[in-house]
């Protein structure tokens, strides 16, 4: 075991990694992170290996989205759940260096497209929007789109898609890989209408692992991530698990 992580984990000798409950494709395949399949699962094992934890020393746990960003002591060492890094959150919890940069993308259902929705700012304004509360999506929707009607808020992405299926909302804003997954697998007739350029988001599109505030383990993880970036491992994992974003139009 690497000296860096020694004595800094909540269970000595093991690394406790949290993910969503449930954890979604393509971040984790089949809600089973211990298989190492899925982008975040693979990243987690790679980080663990680099910090000197054997695969069987990685303990998985599930937390809700809100739960992980509460202040206070944590039940996990690090939490990978597509958390966007933001200055406000950084006051309560600590973030690792970003392990992925995602463009925000708009997901709708086919009937909305049939009704004339297009990937233009003016068309998007008129749609009925929904998002998961407690994510950065609401801020992004307000900043990037400025919808005309009230934004509906839900506990998590599952409830957002449920509301889309119920036709209660037209569109939601999520990171591109999630968008592709929702459109392909969760919604019968989902369409990724468009994506925003990463530079338009004010830096709200970078995912980092979450730590309890002041957790010294962060530096070890950051070390591992920067090593993964520099030797191209991260890019390799990305191409293995995340689809290319080709064909999704840019929204101006």
């Amino acid at each position, binding site marked *: 075991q690497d000296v860096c992580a020694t004595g800094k984990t909540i269970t000595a000798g093991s690394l406790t990694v949290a993910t969503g409950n449930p954890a979604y494709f393509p971040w984790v395949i089949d809600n089973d992170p211990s298989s190492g399949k899925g982008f975040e699962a693979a990243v987690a094992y790679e980080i663990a290996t680099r910090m000197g934890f054997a695969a069987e020393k990685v303990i998985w746990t599930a937390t809700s989205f*809100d739960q992980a*960003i509460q*202040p206070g002591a944590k039940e996990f060492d690090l939490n990978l759940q597509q958390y966007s890094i933001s200055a*406000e*959150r950084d*006051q*309560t919890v600590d973030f690792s260096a970003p392990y992925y940069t995602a463009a925000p993308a708009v997901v709708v259902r086919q009937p909305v497209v049939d009704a004339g929705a297009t990937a233009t700012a003016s068309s998007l304004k008129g749609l009925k929007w*929904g998002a998961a*509360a*407690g994510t950065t999506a*609401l*801020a992004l929707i307000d900043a990037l789109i400025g919808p005309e009607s*009230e*934004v*509906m*808020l*839900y*506990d998590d992405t599952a*409830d957002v898609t*449920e*509301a889309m*299926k*119920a*036709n*209660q*909302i037209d569109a939601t804003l999520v990171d591109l890989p999630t968008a592709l997954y929702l459109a392909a697998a969760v919604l019968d007739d989902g369409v990724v209408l468009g994506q925003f350029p990463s530079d338009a988001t004010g830096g709200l599109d970078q995912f980092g692992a979450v730590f309890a505030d002041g957790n010294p383990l962060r530096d070890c993880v950051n070390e591992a991530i920067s090593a993964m970036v520099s030797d191209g491992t991260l890019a390799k994992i990305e191409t293995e698990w995340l689809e290319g974003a080709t064909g999704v139009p840019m929204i101006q």
Partner: protein
Amino acid sequence: MQTSAAKNSAGAAIGAAPPGKSRRQERERRLRRRSVIVATISTFVVLLLLVVLIPMAPGWEKVQKAFFNGPILIKVFPELLQAFLVDLMIFAWSAPIIALWGLAIALCRDARGPALFPLRLFAILYNDVFRGVPVILVVYLVGFGIPGLGLPRPWNSPYLWGTVALVLSYSAYVAEVYRAGIESIHESQRSAAKSLGLSHAHTMRYVILPQAIRRVIPANMNNFISLQKDVALLSFIGPVEILRQAGVQKSLLANFTPYLAASIIFLAVTIPATRFADHLIARQNKERS
């Protein structure tokens, strides 16, 4: 029982209280003064201890910053108040529907004659099911499930189906309260109406229901106070009412003061309402004994 007429005349015959204070009155004034002093002092001491001791506890500053953050309170209050209007609106249209539908269920439950047995059965099942399932589960099932079947807008609104969920759950409770009211009317009232030759329907309409409904007003008030609080559960299916708004603010500010602010807003409505209901119940209990 003493009639009020007799009481009044007795009071009038006696006239005003005697001039000067009796020994008892003197002593009572003394006692009262003393107890006011003791109560004030002891309350003051306890409060002082709280105010002095609590901030000395380790971590108090952290607690204060996270829960009792003045600037945040002031900042979020107007928005939360705005969101609370959504709660009030939903309550305003749900409550009368629940009152009527609950009464209908209660009457079904009381339906006589074998041909109406399915009605009775329905009412029994209805009450069992909707009193047995947590409101939040009904909200999810009805609020997401039914619109998910492909209803066109605006018929799939979460406001609509959230309301339906509340109505389904709460009318079961209200129906039980009505039924308890109907059963609490003494059999002798039915006997008296029957002995005059009134039909079952007339007895219900003119003799039993007017008394029963009046009698269960306090119990029903408690149901409606609960309803006012459970309106917040609709936030789980989309409407940005006060609970959701507080949650959003909490996430944004990473601070629990918005929840505290929401609690304060709820208390401003529920405390007077609960107090009033308690008062009605106490009066009723007194009358009964």
